[in-house]
């Protein structure tokens, strides 16, 4: 943006990674990570994809100690 101003710091300038390069990784892994968080944090609490209590019961302590609403 500001090409006019001469760089005043001696620190090496880091070229930002272009959004186009990040997008595919963000789309795939971002969603995958959010799904993992959903299973740790909310599955079989307020909503359920899998029926029963097994997931909730297995991650029960983690859910409480990570601060998620549990039951």
């Amino acid at each position, binding site marked *: 943006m*500001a090409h006019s101003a001469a760089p005043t*710091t001696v*620190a*090496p*300038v*880091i*070229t*930002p*990674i*272009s*959004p186009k*390069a*990040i997008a*595919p*990784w*963000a789309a795939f*892994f*971002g969603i*995958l*990570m*959010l799904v*993992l*968080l959903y*299973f*740790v*944090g*909310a599955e079989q*609490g*307020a*909503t359920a994809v899998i029926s029963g*209590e*097994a997931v*909730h*019961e*297995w*991650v*029960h*302590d*983690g*859910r*409480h*100690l*990570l*601060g*998620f*609403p*549990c*039951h």
Partner: protein
Amino acid sequence: MNSISVRALLIRGMLAGLLAGALALAVAYFLGESRVDAAIALEEAHAHTHTHEHGEELVSRTMQATGGLATGVLVFGVAVGGIAALVFCYALGRIGSFGPRATAALVAGAALLTVYVVPFLKYPANPPAVGNPDTIGQRTGLFFLMVALSVLLAVAAVIVGKRLAPRLGNWNATITAAGAYVLLIGLAYAFLPSFNEVGTDFPAGLLWEFRLATLAVQTTLWVSFGLVFGHLTERLLVPEASTGSAGVSDHSTARSAGAVS
């Protein structure tokens, strides 16, 4: 080149998240489990008022406190590590003249604050025996709404701060943006519904210790993630920094000291 570095950063983020998760797991196990057990003991003493899944034990307490806890905290660590790495990819070189290590520390600090501390101040973590099962849907929805609001407002604050920086200077622009964030979060606190489902006979000391333990878990996770991920990214992106300065000068002083004696 760019896409390779996103991949490399993502892998490092998930690894740093796993390591941070392991440290957080130790904190959760040693500081948190005794409080969870104490709360469950109280819950079972009042079993007639709070009847939920503890009817027939699907997963034993021992498994919940070890394998279950480990699964939860480690998966959480890897997942937030991956997301933080993606945020880092975008933030690097865009939030100011910060190197990889400082950017990683800032991303981790911002994540602790916006993803945990800010929602926690409105909807704090509750131990077993606290919480009405009838409101779980509402509480879950509002908790995630608060997380989303906090993160989106923080992103907006960073963008506004960047825009204001040329006019106000970095210091004043940062204060203005942070002030706007605090103001809007305060409004959200004031207008979103609150829940106080702590029974009158639940010990206040236990509640406080449990909540402090959850804060310790998250602080451990994010601080160690920031430091480990910062170290890994600095080594990846600034190769001369890792092989240069510290290591070499230590070695050369050691050698010269050896030569003198």
